[in-house]
């Protein structure tokens, strides 16, 4: 029996039970987006209904058509960078649309730099801890000690060390992810399939080759999953950091909304953050698919039960 006939046999065997022709990725994407819109639409619909029948007070819980309706009015507040400067009037500076874009870009940049620094350094330290006995003895207890500390506890230190600006926000994202990711790197290394290690050793791999060619590729899928889970954590932390330590950013807008009692602005910013998180997750999922071409799609195991 040749391989191709074997593969074809498998394909037909798999395709037979549900009878549907396979969908193209584009159609898949549109369907997925459609369901996302339905989900959000349902939530918005209930909210609007509550407003319509008078349960939701528009001064406290303004429904989406109010807080998104006047985009220009909301966007004006995003110009927080200029607001602090003395002698600049409120209408100076970038256009409202530019102000929103700048604010989003600067928050996103802080998240990504913090995330990238934390993942790379956690991978390096996690691998080093398993690679060098002495590094494990010297660092692991401290890492374990610091891992459960809330990032909020680091906030004053972030400001003492980095003052006002991008520094403290990036530091906060870093600190929130770093220790957890070190521990999860170690956990991943410890659960690498033992046969992989036996095979590499039998083939005569040095310790260095074992780590570079086997252990690191083997732990990547798990680490990317951890990264995706922590992406949301990074967005949460960056907001707190910005609210206190940085001149502009989404966290500052929330702070401004709080100080000026502006629920519309709060909800507008929440909507922006939600959308950003959603897009980031999608982007990371795409990276995961590209980078980890060998991991079969786990979805579908529980479908149709």
């Amino acid at each position: 029996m040749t391989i191709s006939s074997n593969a074809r046999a498998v394909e037909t065997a798999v395709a037979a039970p549900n009878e549907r022709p396979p969908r193209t990725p584009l159609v898949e994407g549109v369907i997925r987006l459609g369901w996302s819109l339905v989900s959000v639409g349902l939530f918005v619909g209930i909210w609007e209904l509550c407003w319509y029948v008078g349960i939701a007070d528009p001064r406290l819980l303004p429904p989406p058509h109010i807080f998104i309706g006047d985009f220009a009015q909301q966007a004006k507040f995003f110009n927080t960078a200029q607001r602090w400067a003395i002698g600049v009037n409120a209408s100076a500076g970038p256009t409202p649309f530019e102000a929103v874009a700048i604010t989003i870009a600067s928050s996103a940049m802080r998240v990504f730099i913090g995330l990238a620094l934390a993942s790379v350094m956690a991978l390096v330290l996690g691998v080093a801890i398993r690679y060098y006995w002495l590094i494990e003895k010297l660092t692991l207890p401290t890492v374990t000690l610091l891992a459960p500390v809330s990032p909020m506890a680091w906030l004053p230190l972030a400001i003492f060390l980095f003052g006002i600006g991008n520094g403290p926000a990036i530091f906060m994202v870093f600190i929130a992810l770093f220790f957890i990711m070190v521990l999860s790197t170690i956990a991943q290394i410890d659960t690498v399939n033992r046969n992989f290690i036996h095979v590499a050793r039998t083939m005569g791999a040095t310790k260095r080759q074992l780590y570079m060619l086997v252990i690191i590729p083997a732990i990547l899928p798990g680490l990317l999953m951890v990264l995706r889970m922590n992406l949301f954590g990074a967005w949460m932390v960056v907001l707190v950091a910005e609210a206190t330590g940085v001149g502009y950013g989404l966290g500052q807008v929330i702070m401004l909304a709080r100080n000026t009692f502006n629920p519309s602005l709060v909800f507008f910013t929440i909507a922006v953050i939600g959308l950003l998180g959603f897009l980031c997750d999608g982007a990371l999922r795409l990276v995961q698919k590209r980078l980890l071409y060998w991991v079969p799609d786990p979805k579908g195991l529980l479908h149709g039960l």
Partner: protein
Amino acid sequence: MDSSAPAVRCRSVGKIWAAGTENAHEALKAIDLDIAAGEFVMLLGPSGCGKSTLLYLIAGLERATSGSLTAFGEPVTDPSPERSLIFQETSLFPWLTIWQNVSFGLRIKGTPPAEQKAVAHRALQRVGLAAAMDKRPFELSGGMRQRVAVARALAMRPKVLLMDEPFAALDVQTRAKMQGFLLDVWRDSGASILFVTHHIDEAVALADRVVVFTARPGRIKEIVPIDVPRPRDLFSPESEKLRLALTDLLRDEVDRAFAEQEGLTSAA
């Protein structure tokens, strides 16, 4: 290396896991065994009798706690590509293509990539999977993956193939096919094979000699030569007699293993 020395020589080899702790347990005791170059030897015994442990010791992945172990006259201290181990579960690296898996050992030695690919192609041809060069492990069936694992071992020109229940996860038909295939590979390569199994049929079908183990701690109970000429008729009276003899030898040990397990549960 002394080519006149046996491929593997065990002299009163013992292994105690977690030696010196309260969890210590003796897996192997006083194993004396010589395996000649080019010989096909089966290790047969109840599960948990330490036959896989012996394979790991010979592979150099674990150290014996007593006795001496040599391969072609040289003490076994570290793993070596000359003694390749093949596992029951798939051990192919999922992130590499089939040919990259097969040439993994050459890549570690620093062989040029073009030669790696050529060697992988030849090895895959020998196991009938040359067409799968650029596929990935998850695209192949269980039997195909085990053939790739054999090709990966062959690419290193091993003198001893250590096989730890390699066909246990395969269905009966595939297993029969794989046994025929393994005999071909064994004849071409001239390597010794040490094969762990708990299937009596498999032992009678393949081996020159069958080493029957006792239950824990594993000791050699008896070594049964299978003097049936190949290709073997598994339904001949001769094969039937051997199967019965092996079944008798094994029965006591399985009973003992069960009694011990029951003792453990009632004590707990």
